[in-house]
């Protein structure tokens, strides 16, 4: 604390500045150890301010603190001095990133992480693989904030820097198999970050474009396209202000990488398809390392992402038949994996897949119905198709419900909190599906209605027995009650018509 006094009295700005960065840096650490994060913040921010002020006003690097104790000949070169100064500042930013994180000032923390990464490239040195992974992880943060431009930039830089890892000979030249393995894994992990980028971009675009029944709204599409034209200029300005990675040599490579995929919302099928294809390429890349045999969980997550890519692409596709084909691709990739999975070890994934398969079959059934409606008559082939898809959806919802049974195969009396809603929704969906089965056989029709009624009744009865469950399925319960009221009457009428009273 006394040194500051001395330095100020000295009046030598040069000396003062350097002292005042490393000192607050160290004090910052000290105060953080005493759990006084806010004080630490003050010191570090003062260091930061001093750096900025210094760089603006002066220009020559200040004397390094160690130099005060050196003889004249030993003093550092300008270059070295500058290097150390910049390094001290990088540390300031690095500490601030941590401080802001502890204070939960998330955006600032991210900003400082970003800047620290940038400075690592420019001044401090870095390990390419680690840097690339950090950049890729930061891109995921940006995804959650819908900052696609920044996210893409981080990912592009990650790719470029990662490729340096192969080139630079490692310190220990005896690269083991394990190291090679690790390298391949990291590459696949960066690919997975890219998949999420593409997926998020498409899904966010969908949210903007969909109407209240989940279809593409052409009016909104026109609106957004017009808006985008206007914003193109502003985007350029925004770009220049952004924190960009790169010394001159990697700058071009990063730009080239960025040009391969858009960072603006796709507004029609063509644009969506381009992003989809980039995502699909990264799926293949990721699957090269994360194979089923060895990496079951990771492999399945990647396939689920692939399925999600198809699902969101289908939204942009206007033609129902082609849409249906996309959903069929999803079934084709998910069903085989599901079949091989042992639920004893992969229970959660198993349940996820059951639900996704059921939903996808339901989606396909709906599309077939829509296609059928456009024709004059529903031909028997289409009816068969609709029914078979409905049955498959039912099958997977039932499989999910079976997964809830205990080892003695008994369905639980009372459902646990975390499976309550999915179980109820499954029952509800099955009820609805039985109501959608098409048959000209009156007896069969009655049977279907009876089954449907039983499932709606289950919901109503369960909520009566366990009133706490109501909050989880309010809407479904309300509709189930209605159906429980209406169906018996309907069935009566049908019965009467089938066996008329003579």
């Amino acid at each position: 604390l006394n040194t500051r006094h001395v330095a100020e009295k000295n009046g030598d700005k040069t000396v003062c500045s350097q002292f005042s960065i490393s000192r607050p840096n160290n004090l910052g650490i000290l105060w953080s150890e005493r759990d006084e994060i806010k004080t630490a913040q003050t010191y570090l921010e003062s260091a930061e301010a001093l750096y900025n002020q210094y760089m603006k006003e002066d220009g020559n690097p200040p004397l390094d603190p160690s130099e005060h104790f050196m003889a004249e000949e030993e003093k550092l070169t300008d270059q070295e001095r500058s290097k150390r100064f910049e390094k001290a500042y990088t540390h300031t930013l690095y500490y601030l990133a941590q401080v802001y994180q502890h204070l939960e000032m998330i955006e600032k923390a991210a900003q400082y992480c970003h800047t620290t990464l940038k400075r690592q490239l420019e001044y401090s040195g870095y390990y390419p693989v680690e840097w690339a992974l950090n950049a890729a992880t930061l891109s995921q943060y940006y995804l959650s904030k819908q900052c696609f431009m920044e996210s893409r930039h981080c990912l592009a830089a990650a790719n470029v820097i990662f490729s340096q890892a192969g080139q630079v000979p490692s310190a220990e030249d005896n690269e083991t198999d394990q190291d090679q393995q690790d390298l391949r894994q990291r590459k696949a992990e960066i690919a997975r970050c890219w998949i999420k980028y593409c997926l998020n971009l498409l899904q966010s675009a969908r949210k903007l474009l969909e109407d209240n029944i989940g279809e593409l709204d052409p009016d909104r599409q026109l609106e957004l396209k017009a808006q985008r034209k206007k914003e193109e200029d502003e985007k350029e300005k925004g770009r220049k202000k952004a924190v960009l990675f790169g010394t001159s040599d990697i700058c071009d490579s990063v730009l080239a990488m960025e040009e391969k995929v858009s960072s603006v919302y796709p507004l029609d099928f063509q644009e969506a398809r381009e992003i989809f294809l980039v995502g699909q390429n990264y799926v293949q890349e990721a699957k090269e390392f994360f194979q089923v045999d060895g990496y079951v969980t990771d492999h399945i997550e990647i396939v689920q992402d692939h399925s999600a890519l198809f699902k969101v692409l289908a939204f942009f596709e206007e033609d129902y038949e082609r849409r249906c084909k996309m959903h069929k691709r999803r079934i084709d990739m998910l069903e085989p994996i599901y079949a091989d999975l042992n639920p004893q070890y992969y229970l959660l994934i198993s349940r996820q897949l059951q639900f996704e398969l059921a939903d996808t079959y339901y989606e396909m059934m709906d599309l077939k119905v829509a296609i059928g409606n456009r024709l004059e008559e529903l031909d028997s082939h289409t009816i068969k198709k609709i029914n078979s898809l409905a049955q498959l959806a039912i099958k997977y919802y039932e499989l999910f419900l079976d997964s809830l049974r205990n080892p003695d195969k008994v369905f639980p009396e009372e459902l646990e909190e975390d499976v309550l809603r999915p179980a109820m929704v499954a029952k509800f969906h099955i009820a609805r599906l039985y109501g959608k089965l098409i048959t000209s056989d009156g007896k069969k029709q009655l049977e279907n209605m009876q089954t449907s009624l039983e499932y709606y009744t289950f919901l109503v009865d369960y909520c009566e027995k366990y009133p706490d469950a109501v909050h989880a399925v309010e809407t479904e319960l309300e509709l189930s009650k209605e159906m429980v009221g209406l169906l018996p009457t309907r069935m009566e009428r049908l019965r009467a018509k089938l066996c008329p009273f003579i």
Partner: protein
Amino acid sequence: MLRSLRPLSKSAEGGRVIVEVDGKLAKVRNIKVDSRFDGTWDSREKIVAFSFDYCYWSVDAEDPKYASQEMVFQDLGTSVLMGAFRGYNICLFAYGQTGSGKTYTMMGTPVTIICAFFSFHFFLFSFLEIYNERVRDLLKQSDQKKPYTLRVREHPETGPYVQGLSQHLVTDYKQVVELLEKGIAKRITAATHIHNASSRSHAIFTIHYTQAILENNLPSEIASKINLVDLAGSERADPSYCKDRITEGANINKSLVTLGIVISTLAQNSQMFSSCQSINTVTSEGESSHAGSPSTSSISGTRRQAYIPYRDSILTWLLKDSLGGNSKTIMIATISPASSSYHETMSTLRYASNAKNIINKPRVNEDANVKLIRELREEIDRLKTMLLSFELRNSSPSWSEDRDGNLTELVLQNEMKVCMIRSML
């Protein structure tokens, strides 16, 4: 989940006791707020309380609240045993500061369990250690200089496994003890500043328990797995790192290690659906290593928005599906009562508290559901209208009975068409 404490060791005797157990609550006195220690628990002081399913105080055998090893077994061991008996997989974690009594609790309990049953069942034991993300078989002699590293893999049918891990058939209690002792001796021990016999590695002791039974007069078997996990001491392997403090960068050249951790945390926390915390984030808090991958899971549709590349995965990989579902998981958190361990005690309790919420929650795809609900509403409206109109029509004499056969079909077809058209609106 329960917590037990260890008697103050000789070196800690001079310190003050800042922990108290009250029923299902563990209370810790914040020593920063209160600088004068007068032995009474003043409600004006800052006291933080954590609730658990079970709390045990085992510091002083003379204390009326003392919980003996037998008591712990009673509560904990029985539940483990019954679960395994019925075919559930069990996972028992022990977490806490080195020197707080984990190893003692952990190893003592299963030994008592095992000796209970030995007929119509057989047990296969394996014991492994995870140190610096490398897996070692603790029950196999390796003649090479380098410790033999095993690879962890996942198989779709048999689940996650360690390739090449030795399994030992055991037929009596003495053998079990022998195996345990052999394995424990092999563990890498590193001196920490608190407890000399501590280890910085995780250890997993696995019991494959198979019962031969008759099901519908056919021989069958029930297999279950009991994992006993001894989590590494909760001090960071790198003593200069602490979550609540800033890591110095001065001595780190190229690799600002913590930067990766900060970025990972930012990415994780900003995810919309990270309502569940994975055991990895709990365990990784106890090491210098990196924030783990959140195993948030939803049943379909709305899944994780981001992929966080994580670096230490071995532990969670092996035990991933042991949380929730058809597994029973028990976590034992052990803490020291001494004031000198305040930080670590608070950390442990906080993480253990969070661990209670580690459940993989399946969630519903709400997009698909909303659409279905809308359709059903329309169907209901249509049904109501139809029933009303048919009631009116039925009173009219123009519907003759011999037309009813064809009429039924016509009606059905019409209904189907209306239904389908409406459903597409």
